[in-house]
């Protein structure tokens, strides 16, 4: 919990105290640069900056969420880099992880805010209900009030997960709680969206490492996401892309195309309209990722992906024959990839417009 130790030690001092040599520190910096998707030539600059980096206070708020984002971060594995970064930040409030609850926990949050005014980071997972504050409260405080109060003295906000970034599942049609994202409420502080359901753990720590290293936030795209991780589409970085360019597609999960690892576009893969780092960073210690395991991308790092018209059906396939519509992919792969993305976006918009809700009464009538 918050105390006067915050900011007293640099990262270099912390590591030295743990018996880490300068060579070990360089290894740490090499892995950190790789994690932040920065070029290896930046390692000396990262080393110089990280050595002097001071311990920032972090307040983690969990609102309308499933705890998947925290699970992603804490359960994925225990790599040295993440450990060192989390040892080095002062995680002063995280009600899912901390033992304290109620007034004691809230007092710790308020103390951290007071002692580190203007410098602390706020990490938020989960969306915020606006329809009725009673839908989600912590220690009797509504999510909206807690967010506004906590962010008032913060340096920046990191919205972790698609719920905090874009509203996520709670925001899905018909959005019964009136859920909104952090950036729909916070307008006067920098907000970084680390979207994904859940986000890749190294992307979360990569953003924290960037703040530690450079004292600021990375460059963001038009949806507020760090460009180093969300700058390219899954489709453009997919190892199955050459099959797409050749017009070779799996049609079912057990056909010849599936066995040969062909493109999953026709099975609803949302890769062309999804921006994330899964294709290179991968999951489970870099073991694999959805497309490599034979399943199309769900598009979980994009706004409103729940309402996109279905993960497996024709929503991702434009009307008409795909081979005719995009068969020139072998000639102009990237351009056509972008065009396919546009077709997908349009198709998804149509699907959202056509979406018919089903009530319990409807189900009873048909059963």
């Amino acid at each position, binding site marked *: 919990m918050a105390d006067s130790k915050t900011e007293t030690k640099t990262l*270099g001092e912390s590591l*030295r105290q743990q*018996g*880490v*040599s*300068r*060579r*070990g*520190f*360089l*290894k*740490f910096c*090499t*892995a950190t*640069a*790789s*994690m932040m*998707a920065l*070029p*290896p*030539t930046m390692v000396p600059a990262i080393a110089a900056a990280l*050595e002097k980096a001071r311990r920032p206070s972090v307040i983690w708020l969990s609102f309308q969420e499933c705890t998947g984002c925290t699970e992603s971060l804490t359960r994925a*594995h*225990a*790599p*040295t*880099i993440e450990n060192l970064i989390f040892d080095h930040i002062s995680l002063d409030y995280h009600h899912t992880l901390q033992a304290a609850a109620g007034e004691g926990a809230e007092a710790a949050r308020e103390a951290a805010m007071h002692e580190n005014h203007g410098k602390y980071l706020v990490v938020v997972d989960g969306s915020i209900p606006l329809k009725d504050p009673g839908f989600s409260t912590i220690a009797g405080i509504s999510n909206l009030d807690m967010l506004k109060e906590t962010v008032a003295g913060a340096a920046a906000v990191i919205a972790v997960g698609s719920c905090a970034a874009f509203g996520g599942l709670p925001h899905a049609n018909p959005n019964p709680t009136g859920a909104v994202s952090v950036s729909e409420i916070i307008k006067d502080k920098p907000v970084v969206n680390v979207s994904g359901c859940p986000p890749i753990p190294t992307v979360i720590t990569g953003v924290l490492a960037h703040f530690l290293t450079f004292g600021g936030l990375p460059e963001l795209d038009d949806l507020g996401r760090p460009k180093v991780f969300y700058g390219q589409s899954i489709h453009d*970085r*997919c*190892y*199955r892309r*050459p099959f797409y360019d050749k017009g070779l597609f799996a049609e079912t999960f057990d056909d010849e195309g599936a*066995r*040969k*690892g062909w493109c999953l576009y026709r099975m609803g893969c949302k890769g062309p309209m999804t921006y994330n780092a899964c*294709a*290179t*960073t991968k999951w*489970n*210690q*870099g*073991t694999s990722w959805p497309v*490599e395991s034979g399943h199309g991308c769900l598009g979980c790092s994009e706004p409103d992906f729940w309402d996109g018209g279905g993960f497996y059906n024709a929503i991702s396939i434009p009307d008409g024959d795909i081979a005719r519509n995009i068969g020139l992919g072998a000639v102009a792969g990237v351009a056509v990839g972008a065009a396919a993305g546009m077709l997908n976006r349009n198709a998804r918009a149509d699907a959202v417009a056509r979406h018919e809700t089903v009530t319990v009464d409807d189900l009873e009538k048909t059963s």
Partner: protein
Amino acid sequence: MQKLQDIDVRIEAAVDQSVQHGNAIPLLHEILHALRRLGETEEPTTIDLRSIPFGPGDEEQLLDALDRGEVTVKLETLGASEIYETAFAGVWIVEHKNTEGERIALQIEITRVPEILFTQVADLTDSISRLENRLRAPDVGAPAEQSYQWEKA
């Protein structure tokens, strides 16, 4: 608690070796260009394989093509690291693992000697200090206490 690597994985169908994703060949060309640069201007190059969208078998194909050369070094700091020169002199594979044995970085360095193998100035300064203290101590045979002082670098 059971870890991921403890779960028994059964492969029902062998990976189709005839399927090539084609990511190794362009990298080999990039390495060739980097080697030429190293030879002509001494400019080193590092390729971070984490940023390459490898498919199944791509990494194996690349590493098989590069093969292993004469030098292998093991580094023990914050987990194990293995650094080896490939069959192509000047092309090094640098693999860093954490204390859990999980890979945290895999890079190809095109250089004469990877930077991390050099004794760092700060560690050298620290060594001098510790050895001086050791020789001043009455019991020269006792184990030395390590304390790193990077700021002296």
